[in-house]
């Protein structure tokens, strides 16, 4: 860890995370720290354990061992209700957008508010929050469309608006540009940058898109065989002489 990092506030921390499926060890003592306001990119080959790591992070999978702390709360020791409350501090953008296809865009965005609006003491009307979230992703006109009527890029934007609607402090992006054409991918990357500046969120970005990493990453962790193989800025990693690192950045 660099000296400048020691004074920064840690918002999310993974310590010695282990996850196996039978004899296949997917995560092997994986460690990670996300600082407030930072964009941290985790890169790795397909099957390197990136998605398993984020699923453990939000409680969708139970790790074999290790500690995951979000805003100083250990998620592995929380009961279901406390975990649900903690999850409101995290926005999750799924790889395939995961919009509820039986609901309109409006209903998709209203969904997280149903349960948590009162508890989070949000005073604005649901309508206002929905409009505001859609405006922030540049899709105000899509309010009453069904997900099946949206393009891949629009779906990703709506999913991002849904992830932002509870004003989370952390956003997790799981392969945000996968499956998009290069132009739309660039638009999504620009959106991710603008969200960081306007919402002040910290972001954990799982990707193997080098262009995405170059633009958004403050720091990059390379995940190889379930371990954090190397960590550094884009410049540091792209100029590395290590063959495994160079394989990613060439």
């Amino acid at each position: 860890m660099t000296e400048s990092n020691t004074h920064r506030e840690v918002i999310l921390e993974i310590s010695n995370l282990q996850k196996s499926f039978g004899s296949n060890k997917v995560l092997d003592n994986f460690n990670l720290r996300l600082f407030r306001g930072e964009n941290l990119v985790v890169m790795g080959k397909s099957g390197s354990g990136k998605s398993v790591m984020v699923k453990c992070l939000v409680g969708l999978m139970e790790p074999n061992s290790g500690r995951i702390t979000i805003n100083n709360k250990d998620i592995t020791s929380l009961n279901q209700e406390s975990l649900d409350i903690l999850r409101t501090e995290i926005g999750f953008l799924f790889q395939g957008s995961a919009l509820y296809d039986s609901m309109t865009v409006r209903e998709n965005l209203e969904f997280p508010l149903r349960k948590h609006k009162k508890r989070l003491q949000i005073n604005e009307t649901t309508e206002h929050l929905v409009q505001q979230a859609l405006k922030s992703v540049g899709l105000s006109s899509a309010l009453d469309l069904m997900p099946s009527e949206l393009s891949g890029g629009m779906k990703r934007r709506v999913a991002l608006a849904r992830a932002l609607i509870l004003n989370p402090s952390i956003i997790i992006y799981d392969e945000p540009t996968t499956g998009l054409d290069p132009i739309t991918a660039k638009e999504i990357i620009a959106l991710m940058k603008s969200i960081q500046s306007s919402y002040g969120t910290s972001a954990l970005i799982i990707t193997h898109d080098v262009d995405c990493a170059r633009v958004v990453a403050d720091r990059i962790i390379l995940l190889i065989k379930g371990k954090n193989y190397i960590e550094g800025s884009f410049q540091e990693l792209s100029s590395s002489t290590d063959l495994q690192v160079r394989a990613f950045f060439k």
Partner: protein
Amino acid sequence: MASSINIADKTYNALVEIGDMTFFAKRYFKSVGSAPIEWEELWRQCYLVGNRSLLLVAVTGFILGLVFTLQSRPTLSEFGAVSWMPSMVSISIVREIGPVITALVCAGKISSGIGAEIGSMRVTEQIDAMEVSGTNPFKYLVMTRVTATTLMLPLLIIFGDAVALFGSALVEYLKGGVSFVLYFNKVFDAITFNDLLPATIKSFFFGFVIGLIGCYKGYYCEKGTAGVGKASNSAVVYASMILFVVDFIAVFISDIFFEI
């Protein structure tokens, strides 16, 4: 040797699946008993399950009554017992054929629909998205659908029985000149409390089975579009099979507690 290992494997897998379904059912009862209840989604599901199956149940019931009466008529006529037609048809339909046929039709429509819907939600990570947003997907998706089918199936069965009796009355009117009033008078004379109560009680169980199997198959759907197809298909097969088992148990218990 290989075939005996195969049979042992299949038996083991079937037992594991029965165990999993039992735990799934236990989880359902736990979620029904704990607040908050997703009332809005529950009403929506009741509407979808009830309203969208109405036409299918009506057509099936009507044809059932029609065919049953047409097929029985020559035999009863041979014995000079055509006047027994309303009582015979009504008792058969209310006690057994109506509930079972309606439940099978609903298993085909509702159980497969639920299996495919929840299965595709699982495959496209919509269930994960729900969980991450702090909503209990089991409560929102499973509890509401199973409760809706449990509540709606008895109503659909009563409706199906009524339409089947109407179909039967129509045949009697056209073939034998029996008026609708006379026909239904004879029907209500024949049917007793002991016919209605067991049939109504078992229809709640039928509804529960249809909803539970559809949700179970969808919730634990394998990955990919093939997984969704498999979930939908096996939901119908399992639900239909378990309906007959439930029916057998229900008839067995009715035989003990009610005079048949």
